[in-house]
């Protein structure tokens, strides 16, 4: 670092080395069409997925465009309120703004009939017993407290059904990368479906596959 020449008046005082510059910006957020329609379903305790055409993937929640097709998703499909844990993590840190007791579990849950996992909490089971493939169901708030927010589903809890053994294991280099697969069926070994053409193909995976 170059030698700095200070004027005499600043040579014998403690130098400032850092400065706080807090800033706050206020916005009015509107969710847009697809998310509004999803939230309208939530107020009726329905989980509504959306798709671009009858043969394309069902996104839950939809964000307005199908990333395979680049198309809007006007078709609404109600999906099941039960699904399979496709991945999870155990949270041991208290985050700002979170009222959760730690440790708790956040999971990706592929609802039956959906092609995209949603992220939500797993409760009513000790965090160390949550596992990939576990079948879970939505637990709603009391009817009086249902609002257009995903928080109207308090959490998911185990259904007690047998685990889905076909679930994709994170770390296996398979599947589509979307955390899910069409029809809820795991790809056969070393075979992936091309999500754009719908054709299967043999992948040459290296590493841990």
């Amino acid at each position: 670092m170059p030698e700095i020449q200070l004027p005499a008046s600043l040579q014998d005082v403690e130098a400032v080395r850092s400065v706080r510059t807090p800033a706050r910006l206020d916005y009015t957020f509107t969710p847009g069409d697809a998310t509004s329609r999803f939230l309208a379903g939530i107020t009726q305790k329905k989980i509504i997925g959306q798709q671009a055409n009858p043969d394309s993937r069902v996104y839950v929640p939809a964000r307005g465009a199908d990333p395979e097709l680049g198309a809007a998703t006007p078709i609404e499909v109600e999906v099941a309120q039960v699904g399979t844990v496709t991945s999870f993590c155990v949270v041991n840190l208290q985050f700002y703004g979170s009222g959760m007791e730690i440790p708790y579990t956040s999971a990706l849950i592929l609802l039956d009939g959906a092609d995209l996992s949603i992220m939500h909490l797993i409760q009513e089971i000790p965090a160390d017993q949550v596992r990939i493939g576990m079948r879970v169901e939505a637990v709603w708030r009391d009817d009086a407290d249902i609002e257009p927010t995903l928080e109207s589903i308090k959490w998911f809890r185990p259904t007690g059904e047998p685990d889905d053994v076909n679930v994709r294991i994170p770390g296996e280099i398979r599947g589509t990368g979307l955390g899910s697969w069409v029809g809820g069926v795991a790809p056969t070994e070393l075979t992936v479906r091309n999500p754009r053409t719908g054709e299967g193909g043999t992948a040459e995976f290296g590493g841990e596959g």
Partner: protein
Amino acid sequence: MTDQTEAGEILSAPLIIEYPFKRTTGPIIGAFLTGLREQVLVGSKAEDGRVIVPPAEFDPVSGNDLTELVEVGPEGVIATWAWVTAPHAKHPLDDPFAWVLVTLDGADTPMLGALKADGIDAVSTGARVKPVWAEEREGHIDDIAHWVLVDDADEGDRA
């Protein structure tokens, strides 16, 4: 399966983004902020001899490090200004005021500030101004509470 339905009324929610940043200044900007705390204004001397305020860390032409800091001001002249009739809650002053670019005595480039003045007719390019220091200073641009015009009486005081 249903076709697309009307979304009905538009949902909205407040969204507040906060940036609670603490920034490392480096020695040049640090010296400028140190100066503000000590009620001293400094600039950096560029390779062509110009004095740049707030100090630049590098020469605007060559890009070389600038290392010589010199005292400037505290008075200066208005290089340009803009009159704010209805200040925003985030602006430095609550009453109508002028943004000013002030070229401090001994400086060659102007710096931005908020000038407290009686009205738009009181402000003009070339007018002399001086800083009003905040009572509590910590090494922050807000250590200059605002700027005021140097009026004739002040000129008398200076003489």
